[in-house]
């Protein structure tokens, strides 16, 4: 299947067209604007990343936090409870290893992932949520703490635009690091292709979940990786290690697909056990859909009212 064809007739923006926009921020804005434009037709109304809580004033409370307007209306002291606390703190963990530089449909997984991260960041920023960024390959490359201030988004976009140079992927390291850095609960969106051994992922993810974070795992894969639709035998070079192998796709496809499925199943199992949302995204999938799914996911989660409830769907979904 050639990527992008499936969605050519829909009202979504073709990722290929989107990727032709050089500026990452502009791309994010296009997606989000389009999203907002279409949202009024959406059945989901009145979303918010977080809600505000009022509580009765008790002595020792900081009078600065008194809501005078409520007092004016009701003549009672209510404290607007820590507005910054209630805002969503979102951290985007973006994989910038070499394997992400692969792309068979005109743009790479890294470009897609960056755009996705930028879109989410822009969206959350518009909502007034704090967005942080951590890029990594075999080690941590860039870290921007979650903030909501003018210019932060620009820094974030710049960090996302840095080219991927890492030789390998270490999924464990950024997770460990985020556990160390981020003390306050928040949303952690983990964007990677997860084409690396998953041996210690389970442990790190559980540490993250234990800290009370809400974790969303997004696996970005190229359509070619998903269906391995090569025809001619060739020397296949590993983009990370440079290793060469002679592969006859006709003969190797079955085994490849089987192993890939097993790998994804392992990832899915880990996520499900920890109640972590997990999605596989093909790079030819319109970004709006992802954004839409993201919001729906959060809405469902909020309706359920708990962080660690078991997800309704037992099967991982591939949005492709």
């Amino acid at each position, binding site marked *: 299947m050639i990527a992008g064809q499936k969605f050519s007739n829909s009202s979504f923006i073709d990722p290929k067209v989107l990727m032709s926009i050089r500026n990452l921020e502009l791309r994010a804005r296009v997606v989000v604007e389009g999203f907002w434009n279409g949202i009024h037709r959406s059945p989901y109304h009145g979303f918010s990343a977080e809600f505000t809580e009022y509580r009765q004033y008790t002595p020792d409370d900081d009078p600065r936090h008194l809501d005078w307007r409520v007092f004016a209306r009701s003549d009672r002291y209510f404290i607007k409870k820590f507005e910054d606390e209630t805002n969503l703190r979102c951290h985007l963990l973006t994989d910038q290893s070499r394997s992400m530089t692969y792309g068979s449909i005109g743009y790479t997984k890294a470009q897609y992932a960056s755009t996705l991260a930028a879109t989410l960041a822009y969206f959350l920023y518009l909502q007034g949520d704090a967005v942080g960024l951590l890029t990594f390959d075999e080690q941590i490359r860039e870290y921007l703490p979650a903030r909501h201030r003018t210019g932060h988004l620009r820094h974030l976009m710049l960090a996302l635009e840095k080219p991927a140079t890492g030789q390998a992927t270490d999924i464990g390291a950024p997770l460990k690091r985020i556990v160390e850095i981020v003390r306050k609960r928040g949303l952690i969106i983990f964007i990677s292709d997860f084409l690396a051994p998953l041996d210690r992922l389970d442990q790190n993810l559980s540490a993250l979940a234990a800290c009370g974070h809400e974790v969303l795992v997004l696996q970005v894969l190229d359509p070619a*990786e998903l269906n391995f639709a090569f025809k001619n035998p060739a020397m296949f070079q*590993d983009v990370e290690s440079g*290793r060469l192998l*002679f592969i006859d796709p006709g003969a190797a496809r079955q085994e490849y697909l089987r192993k890939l499925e097993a790998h994804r199943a392992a990832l899915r199992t880990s996520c499900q056990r920890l109640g972590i949302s997990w999605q596989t995204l093909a790079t030819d999938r319109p970004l709006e859909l992802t954004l839409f799914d993201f919001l729906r996911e959060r809405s469902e989660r909020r309706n359920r009212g708990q962080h660690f409830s078991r997800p309704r769907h037992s099967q991982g979904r591939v949005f492709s």
Partner: protein
Amino acid sequence: MSFLAPLFLLGGLAVGLPILFHLIRRTTREQKVFSSLMFLSPSPPRLTRRSRIEHLLLLLLRCIVIGLLAFGFARPFLKQAMTAPLDSARKRILLLIDTSASMRRANLWPDARSKAETILRNIAPADQVALFTFDRQLKTLFTFDQWNAAPLGERAARLSQRLAEVSPGWGATQLGSALVQAAETLADAGGKKSAERGRIELITDLQEGSHLEQLQGYEWPKGVEVSINLLKPRGVSNASLQLVSDSEESDLKSSASIRIRVANGAGAKSEQFKVGWALPNQAAFAGKPLEVYVPAGQSRVLPLPVSSNGALDSVLLQGDDEPFDNMVFASPPEAVNLNVIYLGNDTEGDPKQALYFLRRAFQQTRHQAIRVTAHRPGELLPAGEVQSSSLFVIAAPLSNESVAALREQAIGGKTLLVMLGAPTIQPTLSRLLEVDGLRFEEVRPPTYAMLGEIDFRHPIFAPFSDSRFSDFTKIHFWRYCRLDSAGIPRARVLARFDSGDPAIIEVPFGAGRVLVLSSGWQPDSSQLALSSKFVPLMYAILENSGAAAPLPAQYHIGDVVSLGALVGTASPRTVRLPGGEPLALVHTATNFSRTDVPGVYTLVSDTSEKKFVVNLDPAESRITPVALDELDRLGVPAVRTIDTRGIQDQRRLRLQNRELESRQKLWRWFIAGTLAVLLIESWLAGRTARRVLTPAKALPT
């Protein structure tokens, strides 16, 4: 188009290799970048389906390269009519055909003729051919001159006509001498133009008994080669029959049987044979044959009783494959009767006198019956007795008439032995020799005399010439008569005493001779009669006197029969051949040489008939073929030709082909073509590779 090394064409099978390589999916240099190989394992190269052969033109070019290489290495050439050089070397071919008795075997002679015809068919027009046959001797049937003299179209026909007249005889095979003579003939015919090559086409069964000895030490002439056309007999078993010659001393009583030797061939399958007297001119037994068991490669000698009536003269063998040597002829032994006349005054049986010893010297043997008749000097000798005697011993003075009669006998070819036992014999001797005043005196040496000087070249003493027998010193002479040999004309002293006086004098007399022994042999004169030399000396004198020698038991085919030995002085008139037809002999003939058929021959003279048998040479029965290496060992440049057109022609053809090929050098063109196609192939392959690589680079990574 022909090929010098056609086996290289098999290299063309390598065409399969490029096809196979094209069928194998290329382990291409094309590289694809992929995100991760963690789910991939290397896959082995595999064959594509046949319908997916790629780069057909390239494949075709590669196949052509291999094909051209194979053709080039096979060294092709175009057959043309062979021109000048080889044809100009005209050859002399000498057909040498075996006509010995062993060629009488079932299929050999027709085979030999067909081989000869084949050779004749295959000769070049410029070649010269001569036809020779051989058994014991080389026979010329058609010479090179006759070939050249004949009209061009008729030469081969005339030669084969001559060949058709020949058939194998009964002779032994003298292959060695035949080859030597043939080679000499060829070398002579070649003359000074040594460049002209000659070839002997030998057609023979090359049996074991071929007598190759003559080739030993013979330096084979250059430029003469021998092509051997070996004839393959059908049968392998052969047993032969041979008459064993009895010795002179054999027991008289045993003359009732003859001895027959039955030899069986090495590779024979049959081992049980029947031997017996055959009916005349038939291959059937006259009586009950003897059963004889002879293992292969061995022989048995068995006595065969002579038939009672004596009419049967051939012995037959049955039980083997080859009949040509299964009959042997044996005439019943016939003793020769000889007379020796002694003229003396001796008393019969007195051991002190000469006659006593003379009688005992001549014993009767199986083949010779010698009778010594003693007569008083005055007696009248019977005419028949005189006629049949060839030796006269004179030991006493004779009358004038007797001396005259004896002189006539001596002139007629007989021998008179005069023994000077006493001086009284002097007048007789003078008259006999017709010498007056012959000085004569008796000598009694103080001790004894002995023979000091002997002429061993003389036939009488020739048997003693060997140093083992030449010692006469044991013979002592007590007395002798001194004779002046110088006074006797034509006298030859055969032996002298140690004193120098002549002991034995020979005086030729017409056809005969007079021998004078200057001493007696009786014990009171000398020890001669008591010595071991006496008997051989007497026999030598008797044989030298022209008496008939004992008959050999048999002759072989081709042997020359001495007539004198058979009938003595009697002149034979005709010989009756085995078939019965008479053959007149010229009066002066002393030998008979037409013994070319086995059988019983009869020599008919005025007074008597003598039979002699001629048998096959026993060597002819040894029919196992000689290994061809044997000829090589003897220095004959033999070319093994199993088939007439076989190896020899093939070799020539190969030589021609090689020459043609080296002249045409077509392989160069093939190699040049290969290089050209390789160039095109390289260019095309390079272009194809570029085309394949270009889209690969376009892939985004």
